[in-house]
């Protein structure tokens, strides 16, 4: 409860900060709209030549693209700004300030910074998904719940992966390149993970679980994810969260501050 209140506080301060630069905010929203509409255009061009892509019809593809922007939007909303700040803290030795506060350091560091404008990306992603859903007839409460669960699992998976990656900053300090690679791999999530050849599919579903985080929610909402698959996803996400948190704590032990 206290953590939720803190989270709301962080969010509010970051919102106030972004509202200081209104023209910039408007321009960023324009960019989001342009990026998403051109991506939808790319999908439409592909479907100009086919009605189905590896078992995904246009409706299902739009749902998938919507999920992609929901997941990527979530990453850019809070994870990317927070983790960048975290690495800077390690480099400058200012992580001490977070460690001394009376709350979980992992929470304070990894959910601290927001790019509020990215809510626009998530919102527009949701719109694309809803348009896609309009073309799929079967949507019961079961699918809706499964979708919500799968999407949250997707968020958790991405969080766990970024946490594990950024933990390396404790030893190597400069790891922005590693993170850049991660973000470029994320781009592959815009298509269903099963279209990729073997080696890439394995990478995208295990090492960089982008494929899982985007594809499974889209499958859940179109009723193509069975209960067993969902259960595996939930257990896997919880395990990933716990493991990455443990790893973070191990890394934290070798943090020494600025001149210690």
């Amino acid at each position: 409860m206290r953590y939720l209140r803190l989270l709301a506080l962080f969010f509010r301060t970051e919102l106030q900060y972004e509202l200081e630069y209104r023209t910039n905010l408007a321009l960023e929203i324009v960019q989001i709209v342009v990026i998403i509409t051109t991506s939808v255009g790319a999908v439409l061009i592909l479907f100009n030549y086919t009605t189905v892509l590896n078992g995904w019809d246009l409706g299902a593809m739009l749902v998938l693209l919507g999920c992609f922007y929901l997941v990527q939007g979530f990453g850019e909303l809070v994870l990317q700004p927070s983790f960048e700040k975290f690495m800077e803290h390690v480099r400058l030795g200012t992580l001490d300030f977070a460690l001394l506060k009376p709350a979980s350091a992992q929470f304070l560091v990894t959910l601290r910074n927001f790019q509020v404008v990215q809510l626009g990306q998530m919102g527009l992603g949701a719109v694309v998904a809803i348009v896609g859903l309009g073309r799929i007839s079967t949507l019961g409460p079961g699918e809706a719940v499964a979708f919500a669960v799968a999407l949250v699992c997707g968020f958790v998976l991405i969080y766990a992966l970024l946490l594990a990656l950024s933990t390396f900053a404790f030893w190597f300090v400069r790891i922005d390149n590693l993170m850049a690679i991660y973000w470029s791999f994320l781009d592959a999530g815009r298509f269903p993970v099963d279209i990729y050849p073997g080696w890439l599919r394995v990478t995208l579903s295990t090492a960089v679980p982008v494929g899982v985080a985007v594809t499974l929610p889209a499958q859940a909402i179109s009723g193509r994810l069975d209960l067993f698959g969902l259960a595996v996803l939930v257990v896997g996400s919880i395990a990933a969260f716990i493991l990455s948190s443990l790893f973070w704590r191990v890394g934290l032990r070798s943090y020494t501050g600025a001149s210690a």
Partner: protein
Amino acid sequence: MIDVYRALFVGQIQAASQYRVQSVLWMLFSVIRPVIFLAAWVAVANAQGGRVASYDVRDFAAYYVALSLVSNLATSWNAYDFEFEVRMGRLSPKLLRPLHPIHYAVVENIVWKMTTIIPLLIVLGFVAVTFDARFRATPVHLVLFVPSVILGGSLAFLGGWVIATSAFWTTRVHAVSTLWDRAVFIFAGQIAPLALLPGALQTIALVLPFGYMRGVPAEILQGAVDVPTAMLLIAVQAIWVAIFYALLQVVWRVGVRQYTGVGA
């Protein structure tokens, strides 16, 4: 001028050799997106019994391998750097030097492309084998590819600079360059080979400069166009390079008068 360039090259090569891992990682960006769209088109072709219009699965592989190489050689990141320099006032000392700032960028651009070409070719060879690419290029195509990719790269570079100079007026060019990048994404042959763009989009791609930056050299390397068409396309590329060169002269001259160091 030759001495100046030699000195600039030495400096840039020394700078680049300090960041070897970084430049190789950035190279992956040129590969990842073409591979994503290659996989998508292969899925489309498989759903359509192995081919889409004149492209079969192995043609798509060849096209996207070629496109990936061209993207790496015809990329331009000046707009982002330039915005930073204008905003931070770092452009001012550069303007005072006797050499136009563009020369530093030219050398930086060439050095980066030279240092990444070998690892890039290794990665692309791997992709070509995985997807079983088939090139239809004849030796003549390979010869024509050289001027075509140089013109495409020059066009992308000059275009990037024209976009970048808008920072003289707006300070922030991020939004403008996003628009530009997305136009490249749609029209330059990234989402589909130019031949497969639906009617109106194909016309736009061939009327505007975008298709000539990446799609045209890639199609020539793949061998998708016959030799007379290729020569015609190269001629159009040359015209666009001339237009953008002239345009840059004009906007630079007007814009640099507009520029004031922050706080002036």
